[in-house]
């Protein structure tokens, strides 16, 4: 089992979600996050005060999948989230030791 953590541009969330459901992935956790990488922030000016805002709003998408579904999911996310400009985000893949579905106490692949 693997966990995919994808940091994407907020306005791409709907497209990514639709693309994932087309390949049969229907569960995900989404968080509004802030951060920065190579994309620069912007300047805000309030009368005489200028502030540089480094942390930009992004969306963090978390999905846990069985190993054989990971590759396609990564492809689908990266295609849907891509604009070609700096700031499109990153996808991280992490190993997952175990999963437990609380309602039924199923564990492992069956609970994914």
């Amino acid at each position: 089992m693997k966990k995919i953590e994808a940091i994407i541009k907020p306005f791409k969330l709907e497209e990514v979600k639709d693309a994932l459901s087309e390949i049969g992935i229907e569960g995900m956790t989404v968080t509004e996050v802030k951060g920065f990488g190579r994309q620069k922030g912007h300047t805000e000016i309030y009368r005489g005060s200028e502030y540089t805002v480094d942390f930009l709003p992004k969306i963090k998408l978390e999905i846990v999948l069985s190993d054989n579904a990971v590759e396609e999911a990564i492809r689908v996310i990266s295609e849907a989230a891509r604009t070609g400009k700096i700031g499109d985000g990153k996808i991280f893949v992490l190993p997952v030791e175990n999963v437990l579905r609380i309602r039924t106490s199923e564990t492992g692949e069956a609970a994914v």
Partner: protein
Amino acid sequence: MMKKTTSVIRLLAAVASLAMLGAVTSTLHADTNAPAAAPAAAATPAPTPVPFASASLSNQIAFLEAAHSNSDPTSTGIANESDPGHNAWMMVSAAFVLMMTLPGLALFYGGLVRSKNVLSIIAMCFGITALVSVIWWAVGYSLVFGTSFNTTIPVIGPFIGGNEYFFFKGVDSMPNTNYAFWVSQNVFSIFQLTFAIITPALIFGATAERLKFGALMAFVFGWMFLVYFPLAHMVWGSTGLMNGVWNASAKIPAIDFAGGTVVHMSSGWTALILCLILGKRVGHGKEPMPPHSLVLTFIGTALLWVGWYGFNAGSAVAADVVAANAFTTTTLATAVGAFTWPLVEWIFKGKPSVLGFCSGAVAGLVVITPACGFVDSTGAVIIGVVAGVVPYIFCTIIKNIFKYDDALDTFGVHGVGGTCGALLTGILVNPAVNSNLTADAVAGKNGLKAAIASHSLVVAQAEAAVITIALAVVMTTILAFLVKFTIGLRPSIEAEHQGLDILDHGEEGYNH
């Protein structure tokens, strides 16, 4: 905690002793002097006034015509009374000006601070409204609009009013003809109260996010007596030193229609001195301190603009031709200011901001305030342009050069804008819009008419501006140090980080 309680007790004791003093002096006054101030027109001996119903038809018509044109009814021989039309406008105006503070200024300033301090702004506006109302009833109205000291202690007459209206004695629904022939004195006094409320509230934009509430209220209490009451009397009292329009023996025939000196210069220059003595906010210039809600600031600005019609057009103290002119010039100057400020931003910073629209509108309102009843529409447009440029320079360039923390630009907008307005009123004055400017009975005697004719009114305006600045600067310095060394001005650094809402009020603006 102990210290805080002591300071509150001290404050209450001061109010109580003042109230007792007032009661004693007003009783003395009632025993020894004639009951009411002589009306403005008392110089021409008139027969004892008769009730309206028993007057002749021609006198009745003349009386109604005088109400219609907001002029002196004395010659009709009919007993003075208030007029429902003028009263209606003045009650609406008073409510409008109160709306400028609650919630107008509270939202305008509240949106500009960080969310941890939003309630401190609301508490400031509400606290001042409550405190000043009580002081105004007890002594304030009398000290500004009374005239008895001019008779009893003539040397102070031009600087402070009198004690005849202490505790609103005699302030009833009949007009006080020193100020308005047709408006009930109780309505007039409440209208003027709303000015006395918003003026100190303006100051604390400069000191936002770092002045303790107790210190703030103590400062306001002293400031009303040392700055506002004397200044408002000098400018608007009928025996005032600089009241060119109403005082025939004014030494300085200056004019200030709705409060360029009394309201904006006094609060703005006080704000500058107080924010210098107070020092910068913790982290100022190092950490970002962006406004927490420009939406609130926008709503506050819009309420200020609408409320300002009561402030400016209401300052005619009648629903007359002068009010109509003030209504028009106020609109034009504000719109032009709201156009100019963001335009300058667009040129020099690349984007016209919503805060720029708000700032330009407020600056336009400030600068037109002393002029609105004295200039024509062309003058108002010129004033709007100045309002969009000069305060902008102070808020963005001068403040950054001298690095004072005028947090919400009270000095930049009100101090600078008010000073511009006082001077521009002297330059752009047009006697065609206001017959008081050339009335022989007053303006003809104190030099105002002559100054306008010779285009030298700006000299008197500059004198009035200098007196205003001097009074505000000196008294604020004394008061600020007095408060600093007794109850202290600032919270601890840790408390300031946490925010004044929790420190001073034990609550938060937003729980989510």
